[in-house]
């Protein structure tokens, strides 16, 4: 099993979490995820996920002009996004603790 497979299931949650404290633009969010330890995340995954979350009504966007370089499109959690982060976060914690228990019982961890 590699992290890429696992990541697919939780990328939505990871991106929502990366936006919890601070708004960010695409590449910025990618950097946050990588510095948090998710080295295998690709730019396309983050871009695609942002698009999907935005279309799902979980994110707001706004454009910030930049003196040097192109304008940047910032993403921000809206109320629905925060609610989804909370809900998915709980699902994840339950799932992770179940997996933790399972692995402990079998003595592999």
């Amino acid at each position, binding site marked *: 099993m590699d992290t890429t497979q696992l990541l697919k299931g939780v990328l939505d949650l990871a991106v929502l979490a990366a936006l919890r404290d601070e708004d960010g633009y695409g*590449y910025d969010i990618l950097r946050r995820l990588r510095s948090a330890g998710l080295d295998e995340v690709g730019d396309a995954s983050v871009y695609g996920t942002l*698009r*999907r979350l935005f279309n799902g009504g979980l994110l707001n966007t706004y454009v910030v002009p*930049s003196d040097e370089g192109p304008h940047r499109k910032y993403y921000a959690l809206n109320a629905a996004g925060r609610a989804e982060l909370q809900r998915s976060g709980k699902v994840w914690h339950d799932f992770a603790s179940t997996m933790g228990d399972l692995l402990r019982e079998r003595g592999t961890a």
Partner: protein
Amino acid sequence: MIGTEQYEITSYLYAVRAALGDLPDAIRDELLEDLPEHLAEVLAEAGGTLVERLGPPEEYAAELRASIGFVGGFPDPPPTPVPLIELRDAVLRRLRVLDVKAGPLFGYERASEFLILLRPGWWVFRGYLVAMVVAWALDDSGQPMGLLPRIGGSEVVALLLLAGAVLGSIWLGRRSFTFTERWPRWALYAGSTVLVLVAIGGFASADSSSRDSNYSDVNYDSNSGNSFGGVQDVFVYDEQGRLVTGARLFDQEGNAIQLGNPYCNDPSTGTDERSQHMGYPYCPESAPFASSSLSASATPSDKRPASASPSAAVSATPVPTPTPSPSTGR
């Protein structure tokens, strides 16, 4: 600098789009909607080209595809390499690059942006071609059609047919954007191809007939062309049935009429040699009817050049007389 960045983004974007070619248009467009801006953001971060930072566009597209969950329910269809489709995709990729490269020639970002502007012009022209084809199919008058879609030689019918076909073609052109299914599109493409071939053929024949007008525009054309096309020499007989030599032909304007070729085949050697005679016939030896004067009298006729025949033949040799019209003709 901006230009090269823009170019890099555009080509990367094209490649990603091509790799997602199998997705429904709506999904793909929505997915790629923000990508140009996003790629510009990426490029603005320090270090390297897009390919260096993001990997090959095909991989980027695959990751993108995975991230949208479009293939979530069922496994990816196995990549069956269909040579024809691969070839088509390769050609399309090249064309897209060419499209971008040729754009500045027309003053646009892409050459296709310029070509799209010409589309209504094509609709009008297509209407004309359809009218010509319809007229050609319906017309059985045997008269030449000319450049208008005449049926039975009627200009009125031609103009009505032309107007109807052009309007119909424009209507179809505006509607063709709504063709979502395959077969109407393909039928349209096939029809257009046929019309383009018709246009090329029609252009070629109109071009050649206008170039040859010096020889063939004699108004005796049957629908298959000039009935004088096979004429090689002209033999004039006077009222006594004597062959006239050195005859010259003129039209009502006083212009000399040229027919045939001034070359004679010498039966003894079998070679063609340039005629030594002024006027017609070029080759008196090949006269189709024996001249009655040959046996009856000594009137010079078929054996001598016109310039040397002083007597009876001269009266029938209308060199100066039929040119009275410089005053009236022009």
